[in-house]
C-alpha cells in the first residue's frame, strides 16, 4: 500500500536512473516504475508494510547539497521506506546481493526441503527468490525445526508449521482485509507460529485468500491438497458463479477436469480476493451427480435417449399443453441461455409465466452504487441481510471504506454480522420486525432513525440484498427504504444474490402481463392451470409446496447441471453444461457484463443452455437458429440497447450496463 501524501512528486535516483515518483510512495513500488523488482515475502501491495522478512533490503543514500551522495551505513528495507527528495536507491549492487543471499540462507535454515511434496512447489515465491537471489547450497547441517506437518486450521485451510517463514501475511490479512482478527502469532523467535486464538477453527468467510497470499507452502488448501502440481495445470480466466458479485477468478483445470479456483485481479470488483463460497464452491464440476445424457421417462423408469428423442418428447408435451406452459429458472445460467429461455416461452409458446426469483415475496432489485463506489461513500446503512454472507465482495469494500476512508456504517439486521465490528451503530432487530423498524426509520422519530438519518445525510448509500424479501414484511420494508433514500439523496442498493439474477432481471425473465410469478406457477401446477413446466437448473422441492406442484404437473422438463430432487419428477431430463464449460456473458449485481470463455469440455452429451433452447425453438417454429453465443448477444443488444457493450468486444474488466434503456440510448455509461 502506497502511503499517499497528496500529489507532490519527488525525484528519486534508482540504479542511476532519475525518476519522479509521488512523495511517500514505498521504494518497493517505485522501482516497479522502472520495470525493476525488489524481492519480497512479507510485503503485499494491498496491506500495510511491516518489514518482517528483510528480503527487500536495498542500499539507500541521499544527495547532498554539494552534489555528492552520502550512503546510509546499513541497508534499508525497501517495503517500509517512503520515497523522498534526492533519495538514491541501489537495488543491484554487490552488497545488496550479498544481503539477499544472507537473508535467504537464514530463512532456509528452518525451512524443510520438501518442495517435491509441497503443494506450493512450482509457484512458490520462496523457491523463485532462492533460485534468483539465494545461495545454491545449504551450509546448515544441524537438525531443522520439527513441527506438526498437516494441521487443519479449518475444513479449507491446512497449516504446515515447518514451512512457515513468519512473514505475517495471513495474520495481517485477517486484521486488515477480512477483519475477523482470527489469526495471530504465538510464541517468539524461531518458534513463532501463526495460529487461531485458543486453537479454534479458522472460520473466516475469506479464509481461502491466505492460501494464495502465503509466500511458502505453509498454508495450503485442503481441497487442492495433492491434486496436481502447478505445471500439470492449465488455467483460463473465468468469472465466479457462486454468487452475484461476479468475482474474477482463474479456473485451473487438468486433463479436462476442474481442479481449483484462484483470485484474478479486477480492481472494479474483487481487487484480487475471493470468498470461500466461491473458492471452494466449484466442486460440482466433478460431481458424480452430473447429468450426462438426456433421459426420457418410460413408465416408472428413465431411459437414456438421444437429443432428437428428447426434443421430440418435449415438443409433444409442450404442444399438448398449448398455452398452459410455464418456465422456472435458477440464476446460474449465462445471459444467452436466459434470453432464449425467455424467448421460447414469451414469443414461441405464447406463455407469460416465466420467473427466476425464489424469495418469499417477489420484487425487482435496484442498484445505484457499483461495488467500487462504496469506497467513496460517507455513510452506509446495511439493512436486513448480512453482507459477508450474501455479498462477500461488497462486504470487503464496505470494510475497506469504513477502516481506510472513515465511512460511517450503520448496521440494522436481525442476525449478528461481520460488519458489526467496524460499524458505528449496530442494531439488532427481530426477524419479524423488519417492516416495523423500516417504518420507524422512515418516520424519523426514534433514536435509531436519527442515527440512520445522520449516516445518510451526505453522500450516503443503503446496502441490502434480495434475501430481505424472505423476511416477513421484507418487500414492503425495502420499498419504504427506497423512498427514504430518494428523499435524502442517498443511493439505494438492493443487490440480487443469485449469480446471474441481475442478468435475468435485465433480460426480463419475469412474468409478463397477466403471467404468473414463481409462486403462481407452482400453485397453477397444483390446480391444473399449468400443464407443462420447464425447470431450468432450479429445484422447487426446496421451497414450500414445491413437491406437490412437481407431482401434479402433467409434463415436466428438468434441465440442469447436476441431478437434484426435482429430477425424479421429470418426464424429460436434459443435461446442461456448467458455466465454465461454455462461452457466455454474465451480469453481476452491479450490472457489470463480463465474458467467460469455455475452459473445459462439458461431460457426456451435455449442451450449453443456449444451444438447447435454440434447438427446441427450431423444432417448434422453423427459423434460422443461433449458432453461437455471440449471435445471441447481438440479438440481445438489438432488443435491449443496455446490452450494447456486450455486442462488441468487452474489455477485460467487463462493462457496467446502464440502469435504464433511456440512459443507454443517451450513451450515459453509468
Amino acid at each position, binding site marked *: 500500500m502506497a502511503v499517499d501524501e497528496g500529489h507532490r512528486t519527488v525525484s528519486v535516483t534508482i540504479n542511476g536512473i532519475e525518476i519522479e515518483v509521488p512523495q511517500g510512495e514505498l521504494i518497493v513500488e517505485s522501482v516497479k516504475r522502472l520495470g525493476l523488482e525488489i524481492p519480497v515475502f512479507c510485503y503485499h501491495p494491498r496491506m500495510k508494510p511491516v518489514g518482517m522478512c528483510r528480503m527487500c533490503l536495498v542500499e539507500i543514500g541521499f544527495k547532498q547539497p554539494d552534489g555528492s551522495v552520502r550512503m546510509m551505513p546499513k541497508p534499508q528495507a525497501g517495503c517500509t521506506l517512503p520515497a523522498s527528495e534526492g533519495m538514491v536507491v541501489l537495488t543491484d549492487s554487490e552488497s545488496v546481493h550479498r544481503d539477499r543471499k544472507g537473508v535467504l540462507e537464514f530463512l532456509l535454515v528452518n525451512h524443510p526441503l*520438501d518442495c*517435491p*511434496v509441497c503443494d506450493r*512447489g*512450482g509457484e512458490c515465491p520462496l523457491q523463485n527468490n532462492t533460485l534468483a537471489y539465494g545461495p545454491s547450497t545449504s551450509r546448515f547441517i544441524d537438525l531443522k525445526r520439527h513441527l506438526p*506437518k*498437516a494441521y487443519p486450521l479449518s475444513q479449507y485451510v491446512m497449516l504446515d508449521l515447518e514451512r512457515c517463514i513468519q512473514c505475517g501475511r495471513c495474520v495481517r490479512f485477517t486484521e486488515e482485509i477480512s477483519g475477523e482478527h482470527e489469526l495471530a502469532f504465538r510464541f517468539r523467535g524461531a518458534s513463532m507460529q501463526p495460529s487461531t486464538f485458543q486453537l479454534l477453527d479458522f472460520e473466516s468467510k475469506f479464509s481461502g485468500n491466505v492460501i494464495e497470499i502465503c509466500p511458502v507452502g505453509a498454508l495450503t488448501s485442503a481441497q487442492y*491438497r*495433492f*491434486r*496436481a*502440481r502447478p*505445471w*500439470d495445470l492449465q488455467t483460463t480466466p473465468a468469472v465466479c458463479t457462486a454468487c452475484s458479485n461476479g468475482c474474477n477468478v482463474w479456473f485451473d483445470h487438468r*486433463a479436462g477436469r476442474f481442479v481449483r479456483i484462484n483470485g484474478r485481479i479486477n480492481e472494479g470488483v474483487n481487487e484480487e480476493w475471493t470468498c470461500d463460497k466461491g473458492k471452494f464452491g466449484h466442486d460440482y464440476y466433478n460431481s458424480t451427480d452430473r447429468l450426462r445424457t438426456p433421459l426420457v421417462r418410460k413408465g416408472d423408469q428413465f431411459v437414456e435417449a438421444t437429443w432428437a428423442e428428447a426434443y421430440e418428447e418435449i415438443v409433444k408435451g409442450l404442444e399438448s399443453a398449448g398455452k398452459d406452459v410455464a418456465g422456472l429458472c435458477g440464476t446460474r445460467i449465462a445471459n444467452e441461455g436466459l434470453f432464449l429461455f425467455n424467448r421460447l416461452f414469451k414469443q414461441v409458446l405464447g406463455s407469460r409465466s416465466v420467473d427466476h426469483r425464489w424469495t418469499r415475496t417477489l420484487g425487482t432489485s435496484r442498484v445505484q452504487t457499483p461495488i467500487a463506489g462504496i469506497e467513496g461513500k460517507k455513510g452506509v446503512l446495511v439493512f436486513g441481510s448480512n453482507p459477508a454472507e450474501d455479498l462477500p465482495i461488497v462486504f470487503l469494500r464496505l470494510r475497506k471504506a469504513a477502516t481506510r476512508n472513515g465511512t460511517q456504517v450503520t448496521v440494522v439486521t436481525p442476525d449478528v454480522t461481520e460488519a458489526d465490528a467496524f460499524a458505528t451503530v449496530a442494531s439488532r432487530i427481530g426477524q419479524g420486525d423488519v417492516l416495523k423498524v423500516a417504518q420507524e426509520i422512515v418516520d424519523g422519530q426514534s433514536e435509531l432513525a436519527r442515527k440512520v438519518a445522520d449516516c445518510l445525510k451526505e453522500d450516503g448509500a443503503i446496502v441490502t440484498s434480495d434475501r430481505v424479501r424472505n423476511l416477513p414484511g421484507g418487500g414492503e420494508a425495502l420499498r419504504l427504504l427506497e423512498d427514504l433514500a430518494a428523499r435524502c439523496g442517498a443511493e439505494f442498493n438492493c443487490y440480487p444474490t443469485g449469480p446471474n439474477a441481475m442478468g435475468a432481471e435485465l433480460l426480463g425473465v419475469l412474468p409478463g402481463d397477466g403471467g404468473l410469478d414463481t409462486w403462481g406457477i407452482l400453485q397453477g401446477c397444483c390446480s391444473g392451470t399449468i400443464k407443462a413446466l420447464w425447470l431450468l437448473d432450479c429445484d422447487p422441492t426446496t421451497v414450500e409446496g414445491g413437491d406437490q406442484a412437481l407431482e401434479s404437473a402433467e409434463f415436466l422438463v428438468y434441465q440442469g447441471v447436476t441431478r437434484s430432487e426435482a429430477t425424479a419428477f421429470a418426464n424429460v431430463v436434459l443435461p446442461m453444461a456448467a458455466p465454465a464449460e461454455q462461452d457466455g456473458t454474465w451480469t453481476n449485481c452491479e450490472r457489470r457484463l463480463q465474458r467467460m470463455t469455455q475452459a473445459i469440455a462439458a461431460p457426456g452429451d451435455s449442451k450449453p443452455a443456449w444451444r438447447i433452447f435454440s434447438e427446441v425453438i427450431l423444432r417448434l417454429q422453423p427459423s434460422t437458429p443461433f449458432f453461437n453465443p455471440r449471435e445471441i448477444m447481438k440479438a440481445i443488444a438489438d432488443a435491449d440497447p443496455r446490452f450494447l457493450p456486450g455486442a462488441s468486444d468487452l474489455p477485460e474488466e467487463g462493462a457496467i450496463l446502464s440502469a435504464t434503456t433511456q440512459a443507454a440510448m443517451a450513451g450515459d455509461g453509468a
Partner: protein
Amino acid sequence: MSFEVFRDVAKPIIAGFGITSRRLLQQKEKRATIQYPEDRREQFTRTRWRHVLTRYDSGLERCIGCSLCAGACPARCIYVEAAENSDSDRRSPGERYAARYEINLLRCIFCGYCQEACPTGAIVLRKDFELANYDREDFLYTKEMLLEPIRE
C-alpha cells in the same frame, strides 16, 4: 584376365571369403553375430530402456507422486496423480504417494530426463528393451506394471 580385373574384383572377393572362413573357425564367444534371442549382447552401462519404479529396501515405494518427471518430460508422456498416505495405508515414506502413474511408451523418447528430475531416485530407466506389442493400449504402462516387485 587382366591384372586390373584380378586386383579390383577377384582379390576383394577372396579376401572377403577369407574373413568369413576365419570367423567360422573362431570360438563361439568371439563371433560378431549374436544368435538373438537365444543369445544376448551385453549392454552398455548407461543404456536407457524401460522405466522401473523402484522401492526402498523396506518395501516402501520411492515415488512420492511429485510430478517432477512429468514436468521434465519433453514428450509429455507421463501422467501422475498423487494421494495422501495414511498410517493404515502407507505406500511411501512421507505424506504423499503416486496413486496413478502412467507412461505412454509410444510417446516416450527414452531421454532419461525423468530419471534425472526424480528427487528420490524412484523412476529409473533399465535395460529391458523388448517392448514390442500388438495393441496401442498395451503401451500405456500403469503403475502396477512399472513398479518393482517387493524383494524377498
